[in-house]
């Protein structure tokens, strides 16, 4: 249906300004496919009218447009080498920390439908069970904050309900049995004890991080790839300021802070690369 150059440019600059998400050249189809329904539902005859509405009205339409333009692809235990590093090395370290300090804080900074923070929560609980609860610190010592810009994914995440398809993407049989309750024919619900560990909240990574953390572990995976280089650099700086001195930052397997900041050093944990604040930085 051929979106015009002018329409495409208006919409993509709006989306960039409000979410940091860059819609690349040649991605006209993304705008068309994801926004035409909203355009029509809001009584607009083209994207120019939709843009006018967006500019004039700071109401829920803005959030809906940004929401529609986010890519929410995610899975359970996404990236095997990262999650083996979590279960073999990072979780044991966090357990030790929890024995020494009042709280251990973890932040999943673009949590999408919740698979990432729940995967972490399940591994924490799994480690406690393996140690037979002897000296293992209570689960209440761990706090997982999970945020995303998209309100619709947060509804799914907070409900902790997934269909067969979502479950089939990365969930292990043993964990499915232990950490989910079957509800109805097709739905699985995350166990309340696991859900209790995670707090979901809407948050735009473009905003100030003041008041957040400090965190012992931050996961900011597969989201910075959608942003401009300047915004990547800014977010790496803000993440650095929210980590404890011995805290760890996890990013996507294809990502690297190199070129955006020199405040982090890479550490190999098992087979996975993580990043920690450089001493004195």
């Amino acid at each position, binding site marked *: *249906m*051929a979106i015009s150059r002018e329409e495409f440019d208006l919409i993509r600059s709006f989306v960039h300004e409000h979410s940091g998400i860059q819609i690349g050249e040649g991605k006209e189809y993304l705008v068309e*496919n*994801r926004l*035409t*329904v909203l355009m*029509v*539902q809001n009584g607009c*005859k*083209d994207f120019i009218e939709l843009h006018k509405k967006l500019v004039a009205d700071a109401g829920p339409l803005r959030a809906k447009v940004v929401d529609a333009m986010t*890519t*929410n*692809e995610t899975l359970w235990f996404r990236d095997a080498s990262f999650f083996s590093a979590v279960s073999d090395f990072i979780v044991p370290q966090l357990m030790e920390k929890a024995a020494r300090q009042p709280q251990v804080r973890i932040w999943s900074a673009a949590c*999408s*439908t919740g698979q990432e923070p729940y995967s972490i929560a399940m591994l924490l609980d799994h480690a406690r069970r393996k140690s037979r609860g002897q000296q293992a610190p209570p689960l209440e010592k761990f706090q997982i904050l999970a945020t995303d810009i998209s309100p*619709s*994914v947060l509804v799914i995440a907070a409900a902790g309900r997934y*269909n*067969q*398809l*979502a479950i*089939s993407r990365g969930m292990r049989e043993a964990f499915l049995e232990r950490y989910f309750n079957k509800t109805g*024919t*097709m739905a699985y619900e995350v166990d309340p004890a696991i859900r209790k560990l995670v707090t979901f909240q809407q948050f735009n990574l473009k905003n100030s991080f003041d008041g957040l953390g400090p965190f012992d572990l931050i996961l900011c995976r597969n989201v910075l790839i959608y942003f401009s280089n300047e915004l990547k650099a800014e977010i790496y700086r803000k993440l650095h300021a929210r980590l404890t001195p011995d805290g760890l930052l996890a990013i996507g397997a294809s990502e690297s802070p190199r070129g955006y900041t020199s405040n982090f050093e890479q550490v190999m944990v098992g087979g996975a690369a993580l990043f920690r604040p450089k001493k004195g930085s």
Partner: protein
Amino acid sequence: MIKLLTIDDSRTIRRVISGIGAMLGFEVLEAENGAEGLAVLGEHVHEIGLVLLDWNMPGMNGLEVLKSAKANPRIRHIPVMMVTTEGERDYIIQAIQAGAVHYQTKPFSQEEMATRILEAMGMGGA
């Protein structure tokens, strides 16, 4: 198991959509015209999670099928996605105004169709 329903007079398109549905973990029911489609919808109302509806069909066209589905209180809640060669904005606007939740133009790739199906069912895109 959540089912999809494809209403299309082309056997090839029905086959392709069944394949994509299976890949996503859905069983796919098929109907080759509007009247048959509405009958299947009525019969499987509690299982069907999404209807993929062709526009140009002999007999009732897709828009007419959509309107009569939306006029029927038993089945009106089932989301319908148009699958159409009519990529013109006016057509798409008509379909959405009549209650379609999404649309996919033909021809399409497997990935595109899979993404559209998940989006239309509120499961997020890829």
